C-alpha cells in the first residue's frame, strides 16, 4: 500500500519496503526456521532469565511506590525484550543512551539494581554508580537523548574507534524534532548509532494512530536515507537478529539503522497514571496474550530447554537478589548538603560555598 504521493514517478514508501521481522508467534511457535544460535538454545535461556529478573525488579519498584517507599515510577512491564537483547549485544565499550524505561537493558549493562531503585527513589546518586560506565543516565525530556547519541557516535568516528552508540525512545518521541534531526545527521555522516524505537502503542494517553499518520514509525528513517526495519518487539529471536546486525553494521562503519520494535505497554504510563481513563481493557487483555516472557517460556518448555523446577529455583534466586537491592536502597542515607552543591562546578565558587553553609546551618549541620 503506497503511503505517500501515489504515482507521478515520485518517491514512494511502501509498507512492504519496511520489513517486519518475526520468528516466534504469540504462542511461542516458530514462524520460520530459526537461526543457528537460537536452535542451540543457551542464549535464549539467558534472554529468558534476564526478562524474568527485569519483570520481578519492575514489580518490586511498583510495590515500593504503592507503599510510599519510592516516588513516581515508569514500569517496563511487557517491553522487557528489546532491552535484554541490546543489553547482551552491546559490548561494554559501547555506549547506551537510554530513555526512562530501560531497566532490563541497564541491568545487563552492569548497573546495580539498587542504583536503579535509588534513582527512582528521588536521589541523583542513582545515576552515579560505576555500573553505568560511560552510559548516559535516564533521559526524561522526551527525545532529547537522540542528539546525545549522534554526538557520542560522532566522537567515536572522530577518534576512529569501533564503538557503537545505541539509543532508545518511545513511539511518542518520534514526533519530536530532536529525533528527526538526529536521524538526519546519522544519515549524512553515516554514524555508528542505532536508533531503537520501542513502540509500546501509547504515549501516556495518546495512542499510536494519532501520534503519526504513517503506517510505520521505522519509515521515518527513510527521509534521512537510513535503512529502517520493524521487528516484533516481543520476540527475542527477531530482536536479536535485527538489533545484533544493526550493531554489527554500525561497528563496521556502515552507518546507522532505525529499528521499530512493536510491543505493548501493559501497565499504566507511570505509577501516577490511570490508563483505564483512556484505554480499553479488551485491548490490554489481547496484548497480554502476546507478551514476551510467556511466549519465550512456552518455546523453551516445548524444546525442553527450561523446566518448571528450573523456573522455581531461578525465581527464588532472583527474589533474593532483588530483596538485597531493596535493602541497599532503603539503607542509603539521605544525601548530604555537599552532594547538592559540590557537583555543579569542578571547584565550588565562593558564592555557592556561602549558600552551602547557609543550607547546612538551616539543616543543623555544622
Amino acid at each position: 500500500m503506497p503511503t505517500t504521493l501515489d504515482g507521478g514517478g515520485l518517491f514512494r514508501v511502501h509498507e512492504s519496503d519496511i520489513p517486519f521481522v518475526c520468528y516466534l508467534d504469540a504462542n511461542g511457535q516458530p514462524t520460520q526456521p530459526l537461526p543457528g544460535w537460537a536452535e542451540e538454545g543457551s542464549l535464549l535461556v539467558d534472554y529468558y532469565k534476564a526478562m524474568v529478573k527485569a519483570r520481578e525488579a519492575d514489580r518490586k519498584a511498583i510495590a515500593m511506590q504503592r507503599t510510599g517507599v519510592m516516588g513516581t515510577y515508569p514500569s517496563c512491564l511487557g517491553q522487557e525484550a528489546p532491552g535484554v537483547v541490546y543489553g547482551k549485544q552491546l559490548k561494554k565499550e559501547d555506549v547506551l543512551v537510554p530513555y526512562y524505561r530501560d531497566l532490563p537493558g541497564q541491568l545487563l549493562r552492569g548497573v546495580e539494581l539498587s542504583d536503579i531503585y535509588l534513582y527512582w527513589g528521588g536521589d541523583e546518586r542513582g545515576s552515579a554508580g560505576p555500573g553505568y560506565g560511560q552510559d548516559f543516565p535516564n533521559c526524561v525530556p522526551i527525545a532529547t537523548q537522540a542528539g546525545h547519541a549522534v554526538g557520542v557516535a560522532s566522537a567515536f568516528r572522530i577518534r576512529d574507534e569501533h564503538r557503537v552508540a545505541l539509543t532508545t525512545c518511545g513511539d511518542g518521541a518520534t514526533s519530536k524534532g530532536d529525533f528527526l534531526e538526529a536521524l538526519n545527521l546519522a544519515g549524512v555522516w553515516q554514524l555508528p548509532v542505532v536508533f531503537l524505537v520501542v513502540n509500546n502503542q501509547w504515549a501516556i494517553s495518546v495512542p499510536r494512530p494519532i501520534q503519526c499518520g504513517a503506517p510505520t514509525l521505522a519509515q521515518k528513517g527513510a527521509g534521512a536515507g537510513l535503512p529502517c526495519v520493524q521487528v516484533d518487539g516481543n520476540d527475542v529471536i527477531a530482536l536479536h537478529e535485527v538489533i545484533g546486525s544493526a550493531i554489527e553494521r554500525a561497528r563496521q562503519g556502515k552507518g546507522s539503522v532505525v529499528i521499530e520494535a512493536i510491543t505493548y505497554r501493559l501497565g499504566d504510563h507511570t505509577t501516577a497514571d490511570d490508563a483505564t481513563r483512556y484505554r480499553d481493557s479488551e485491548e490490554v487483555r489481547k496484548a497480554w496474550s502476546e507478551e514476551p516472557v510467556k511466549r519465550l517460556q512456552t518455546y523453551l518448555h516445548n524444546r525442553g530447554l527450561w523446566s518448571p523446577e528450573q523456573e522455581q529455583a531461578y525465581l527464588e534466586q532472583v527474589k533474593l537478589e532483588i530483596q538485597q537491592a531493596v535493602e541497599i536502597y532503603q539503607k542509603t542515607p539521605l544525601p548530604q548538603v555537599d552532594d547538592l552543591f559540590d557537583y555543579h562546578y569542578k571547584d565550588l565558587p565562593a558564592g555557592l560555598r556561602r549558600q552551602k553553609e547557609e543550607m547546612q546551618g538551616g539543616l543543623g549541620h555544622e
Partner: protein
Amino acid sequence: MSDKKTLVEAVNTALDHAMADDKDVVLLGEDIGANGGVFRATQDLKSKYGLKRVMDTPLAETLIAGMTVGMAAQGLKPVAEIQFMGFIFACMEQLVTHAARMRNRTRGRLSCPMVLRAPFGGGIHAPEHHSESTEALLAHIPGLRVVIPSSPVRAYGLLRSAIDSPDPVIFLEPKRIYRVQKQTLPETGSRLPLDTCFTLREGSDVTLVTWGACVRECQEACNTLAEQGVSVELIDVATIKPLDMETILASTRKTGRCVIVHEAARSFGVGAEIAARIFEDLFFELKAPVKRVAGYDITMPYYRMEEHYIPDHKRIVIAIHDCLTEP
C-alpha cells in the same frame, strides 16, 4: 457558584467558561483530551467541546508553541498546555523569536493573543525535570506576560483575563498547591486584573513580597510573626511581568523594609529585579537592606532533598527577624 474548588479545578472552570463564552478559544497540548491533562486541568472539556476545540497534539513542544503562534495570528485564542514547565524549553525559540515580538515586528498588523499554561515548581515528589521554577527566564523576554496564581480564586480570575489578553501570556500554575485549598469561586465570568499585585494582608513593620506556592508559607510566617507582635504586609505579585512596582514601592515606603521570597534559584531571579528597583527608588527611605529568601543556586534537587531547597516558613521568619533587627 456554590461548590468550592481547588486551584486545578478553578483552572478547569476558567477554561470551560472561556470556551463557552467565545468559540475562538481552543485548547491544545499533550494528553489534554480523553485523559483530561495529567493533572486533570482539562478534564471533560473534550467531551463537552469536541476534538476540534480540544486537541491532543503529537508529542512535540516546539510544534505546540509554533502552531499556537499560527493560530493566534489568525485571530483564534489558543490556550496551549505544556505538560510540565521542565519541557517548556523546546518552546523558547518560538516564544522569544515569534510570540513575544509578532506585534512589534509587524507594527501591530499581526499579534499573538495566546496563553501557554504550564504546571511548575517543586514539592510533589515528581521525577527529574518536573519541579523547576524558571519564571525569570520567561520574564526576561520583552513582549511576554508572565502570570502566576496563588489560590483557586486568583487562578480563575487571572486565567480569564489571560485568555482575554491581546498579547501572549505564560500562565504558570504552582502544582504544589493544585489541591491544597478549596475556595468558592467568584461570579461566573468575573476577572481579576493582570499587571497588578494583590495585597493579601496589611501591615506596618515589613513588606513581604512573593508569588505562587510560596504565598502559603508566607501566610504561615505572617501568622507566626503576628503572634510575636510583628505586623507584616503581604503582597502576592501575581503578574511577574510586567511588574507592578507601584504597589511594592508604596508598601515598602510605608514599612521601610522588604523581604522577597521565591522558590526559584536566587541569582538573577525575579527577586533580584524587585530588590534592584527598590534600591533605585527608595534607597534613602529604607530602614534595612532588602532581603531575599530563595532557592539556592543549585539544580532543583531530585525529590529526596527537595523540601530542603524550597523556602520554608522557618527561613522566612528568620529573614524577617534579621531585617527587623538590622541597624
